[in-house]
């Protein structure tokens, strides 16, 4: 079994390290002679480590001061008198050295020395801080997270000037390790919630964690669960707000989104602007959003059920209008609605993949052309088109993309249930959803809180948004250890 520790032979050490890192052309082993004849090697992976920094703070000082260091205490002198890096460590562990090389650090090895100096020379060449394209805000900050984990945490630390802001790092992944940082404010987050999150992260078994979405799916024990149990965001201001409420934020190295845990159902329908707008306007926006959600889930199924099973429930005038619009339509109502619904989903998906201007054009032109031609050809009635269009427009009002996808999907099973069992099918679907949501928990917090279990003070920031002085407090439903709701 190969040694896990460095030995005296510097060439053997390099071989050991080389066998544990990708020995590509960018793995640099620069030899420098110190004290006249002692071979010394500087190892780094070009690109991940910044070559300029390595040359400036490691190689240059070694060349200039290498002859002046004390032969008896080489490593100590390298650290204290020679290398200019501010962030360095000494280690003899080969796995640690290999891991740090992959993180962009450089390693200094000396002949006949069983330790290595590891200096932080990681390249900071990442995308610069930009405005989020997926989470636009009128009043919010104009910055979003980048792929640089340290920068993301720095952005957070700049905003939360609180000595209790904690950052804990985890290495997750079987095939390759990914650095994951858990941040929270000690004293605000509930200990039970924190323990729950930590134990999930510590016990996570996954081949690799590349994005927040992948991490979330590995954290959730139910792979077929439709509803997200964490919120993902690119916005630092959102994370700060959630940390202050008593939540934790999980950052993943090389990913520009943070996962906020725990998350409850109603949070996904609260826009960040709600807190910047005046109370009445914010409430109006929320009301619109909840109407939109109900519309997405049940408008099409109700229309279908009334059309095929209970036309007597339409008032007379509305019924005559629908009858006149449906004359000579060959498709059954379900197919009609499904065809239009699927066409719009395809257009939406296509619009996402294409470059921005083309995507928008595709969505607008495609929508108008398909809708117009379908009605003119007599395949779809105007009323059906109107119902489908209203439903699709309502999906755009849901602030969370994760939840919007879920809500949009739910209308399809509801349509099938409506087709099979009529009004009773809708009842079954709705109740099933309620049971599922009340059973769900996110890191020990009831997913349907603060409605169930009822926390009346927290209700002030759920369907409604009370004046800020009443709601900018730590929600009781996020603190199960203070009082034990079930």
């Amino acid at each position, binding site marked *: 079994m190969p040694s896990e520790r460095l030995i005296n032979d510097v060439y053997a050490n390099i071989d050991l390290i080389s066998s544990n890192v990708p020995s590509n052309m960018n793995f640099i082993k620069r030899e420098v002679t110190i004290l006249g004849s002692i071979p010394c090697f500087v190892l780094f992976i070009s690109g991940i480590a910044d070559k300029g920094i390595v040359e400036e703070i490691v190689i240059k000082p070694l060349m200039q001061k290498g002859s002046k260091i004390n032969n008896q205490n080489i490593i100590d002198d390298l650290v204290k008198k020679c290398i200019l890096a501010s962030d360095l460590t000494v280690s003899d562990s080969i796995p640690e050295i290999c891991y740090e090389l992959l993180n962009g650090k450089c390693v200094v090895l000396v002949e006949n020395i069983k330790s290595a100096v590891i200096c932080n020379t990681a390249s900071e060449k990442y995308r610069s801080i930009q405005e989020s394209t997926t989470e636009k805000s009128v009043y919010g900050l104009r910055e979003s997270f980048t792929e640089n984990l340290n920068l993301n945490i720095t952005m957070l630390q700049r905003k939360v000037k609180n000595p209790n802001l904690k950052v804990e790092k985890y290495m997750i992944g079987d095939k390759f390790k990914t650095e994951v940082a858990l941040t929270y404010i000690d004293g605000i987050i509930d200990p039970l919630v924190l323990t729950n999150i930590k134990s999930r992260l510590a016990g996570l078994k996954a081949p690799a964690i590349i994005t927040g979405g992948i991490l979330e799916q590995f954290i959730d024990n139910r792979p077929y669960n439709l509803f997200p149990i964490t919120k993902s965001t690119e916005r630092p201001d959102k994370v700060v707000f959630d940390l202050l409420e008593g939540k934790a934020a999980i950052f993943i190295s090389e990913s520009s989104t943070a996962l906020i845990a725990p998350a409850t159902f109603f949070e996904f329908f609260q826009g960040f602007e709600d807190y910047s707008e005046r109370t009445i306007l914010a409430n109006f926006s929320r009301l619109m959003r909840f109407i939109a959600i109900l519309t997405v889930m049940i408008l099409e199924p109700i229309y279908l059920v009334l059309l095929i099973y209970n036309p007597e429930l*339409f*008032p007379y005038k509305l019924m005559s209008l629908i009858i006149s619009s449906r004359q000579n339509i060959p498709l059954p109502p379900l197919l009609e609605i499904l065809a239009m619904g699927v066409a719009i989903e395809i257009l939406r998906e296509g619009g996402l993949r294409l470059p921005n201007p083309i995507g928008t054009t595709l969505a607008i032109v495609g929508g108008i052309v398909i809708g117009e031609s379908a009605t003119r050809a007599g395949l779809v009635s105007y009323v059906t088109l109107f119902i489908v269009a209203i439903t699709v427009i309502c999906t755009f009002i849901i602030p969370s993309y994760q939840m919007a996808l879920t809500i949009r999907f739910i209308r399809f099973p509801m349509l099938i249930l409506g087709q099979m069992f009529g009004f009773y099918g809708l009842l079954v679907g709705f109740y099933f959803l309620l*049971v599922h949501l009340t059973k769900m928990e996110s890191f020990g917090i009831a997913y349907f809180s603060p409605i*169930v279990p009822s926390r009346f003070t927290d209700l002030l920031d759920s369907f409604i948004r009370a004046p800020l002085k009443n709601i900018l407090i730590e929600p009781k439903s996020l603190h199960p250890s203070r009082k034990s709701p*079930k």
Partner: protein
Amino acid sequence: MFKNNNQITKNQYMFIVQNSMIGVGILSLASGVCKDAQQSGWISVLIGGIYPLYLTIAASIIYKNLYFNEFLEINRRIYGKFLSYIFVIFFLVNFILFETFVLSGFANVLVFSTVKFLSPLTVIILTIVLSYFTVNQGLTTVGRLAELMFYLTIFILIIPLYFINKGDTTNILPLFSSFNSILKAVPSTFFSYSGVEICFLVIPFVTDTKKVLSSGIIGSIFTIALYTITVLFTINYCGWRLTSKLHYPLLYLVSGAELSVLSNFEPLFLFLWGNKIFQTLAVGNFGMSYTMSQITKIPLQRCSLYLSLLVIFISTMLVPEYNRSNIIDKAMPVLVVIILIWTTITLFLSFFKRGAKVEKN
């Protein structure tokens, strides 16, 4: 494997009590009481409310005297091993009957009103699947749902309020007809109030047992008020003669208004009421599964599964409505009398058996 969680809060207990009674009875209650008490039927409903109030008060006192042990344990403490099993089996039978009465009634109403094209068996099977799905993780989910469904109850209350000015107050005058006829109509309210017996099973799972008494009383009062108001408005709108001749007077009432996008309130009412029925059935399902689990020591989920199959079988035999009405008319008075006797004796004996503290299971 399913994870069982049975703990509920005092509010959830209140909502379970409140919700357990709202079943098919709410639709036909006015008809039953108007046959005897005529325009004073609503007073019979109010008086009938003594039944749930008595049961919830007695249950909280019994459990307080016996240190909130589980149902089988308190029976064992008072009646000994043999009789305790007999009583638990009686409650099991009571909840099986309750479940089948509500389920078959629900199927009958739906097939009678909005889903005429469906067979009652389809409704029965799908509904019992939902009931099983609700119960299979224990009482906590049932409690949470009861809390959620309480908000729907408020809407159920709002719909009859729409008819407050639409009726004729002479329909409810004179307020008192004859005291004898009012009392004679009281037993017909018991079916509407049945289900409240669940309080005897769930009290040990309440986290804050100090408030059990007040929670039970508030839950009962809410349902009594809901029943009284709906019956009063129905009589006010339809008059007692028509009310007593209708199968489901409340459905008739809610179908009497035209809205802009729907021809009447019936689908909206059925939607709200249907959700309440699912919840009531879940409470009943927990009641029967829990009692069976106590006797047989089989896990709650499996008991729920076996009993659900049994309930499907019995419920199909209670369709159509006259089958169900006949059996309810015969079974309900017997069940209510036995429960009242058991409650009174247990309440009395619990004061004598309170001596030594029994360890909570």
